[in-house]
């Protein structure tokens, strides 16, 4: 993505780079956790092998159990890398058709570890219909990420977030519902200002609920 293109669609190159950095840092941490588990299980196999050499008798089921644990982690790593790859390709084309739910879902998966670090539980409700839009995918991912970040930066205790997606009055809505008052008008307005250029590219809007417990990302394309 060159500067002109990114600017045209609302993000400066610096903003894009920062966002990329945040995503890759989070994913690399996830991968490192998986590697650490594989490392311990491989080490446990070595420990058991050494014990067997000294006459320790072991049920084959025990070894099978350890191998299965490693398999599960490899499958987990595969999913993490798949999501990273999908994210990496989101800048391939300026305008692309995508499903709002699908993209929100994998962005949530990437964000999951960060959310977990502040005890934020996220539940994304699958809509009955597929809501497909044609726009700049990277910018949409950016908005989803920073909407989550806005919530995370303002929570002070365990928080449940429910996200729903719908299409009403010719507008796509991504609704962020919290179980508690988290957002104040000032921090919300600052956030809206920060992402205003991207919102413009979506002809979109961000609307804070009166009780500070929800907000809506509207996309009008």
């Amino acid at each position, binding site marked *: 993505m060159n500067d002109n293109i990114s600017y045209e669609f609302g993000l400066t190159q610096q903003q894009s780079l920062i966002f990329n950095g945040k995503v890759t840092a989070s994913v690399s941490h996830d991968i490192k956790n998986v*590697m650490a588990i594989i490392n311990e299980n491989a080490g446990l196999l070595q*420990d058991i092998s050494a014990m067997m050499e000294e006459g320790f008798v072991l049920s084959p089921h025990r070894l099978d159990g350890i191998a299965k644990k490693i398999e599960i982690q490899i499958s987990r790593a595969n999913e993490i890398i798949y999501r990273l790859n999908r994210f990496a390709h989101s800048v391939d084309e300026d305008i692309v058709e995508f499903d709002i739910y699908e993209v929100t879902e994998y962005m949530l998966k990437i964000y999951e570890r960060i959310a977990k670090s502040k005890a934020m539980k996220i539940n994304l409700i699958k809509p009955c219909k597929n809501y497909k839009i044609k726009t700049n995918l990277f910018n949409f991912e950016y908005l989803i990420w920073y909407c989550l970040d806005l919530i995370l930066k303002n929570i002070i205790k365990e928080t449940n977030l429910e996200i729903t997606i719908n299409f009403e009055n010719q507008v796509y809505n991504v609704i962020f519902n919290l179980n508690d008052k988290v957002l104040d008008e000032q921090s919300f307005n600052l956030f809206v200002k920060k992402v205003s250029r991207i919102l413009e590219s979506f002809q979109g809007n961000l609307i804070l609920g009166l009780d500070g417990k929800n907000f809506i990302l509207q996309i009008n394309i």
Partner: protein
Amino acid sequence: MRVLLIDDEEELVSTLAERLCIRGFQAEWVTDCRAALALADEIEFDIAVIDVKMPGASGFEIKKQLQNKFNKMKYIFLTGHGSEDDYETGLTEAGEKYYLIKPININELVKILQELYNE
């Protein structure tokens, strides 16, 4: 030596505990701060090995809570990555020697556990 392992990655912490048990340690594991405090009430641990990044409370906060109740317990920190902020805090809280980066070398952990225990 009684060792309490605290990490939210259950598969990691349970396996690490098993490997320490094979090496003669009495190792127990938990995945959150609340469980750590409860278990430490039952068993007098010599050393707690704590992951820095934990849901809700950081490893350093967990240490403070344990320290308030169990003043003889010693601490080793684990981290999944070496971000500079974490590293600085880790050095302050634990010292370079007692701040390990995952994946862990079990022999290194055992050596450090023994050194810390004998301090």
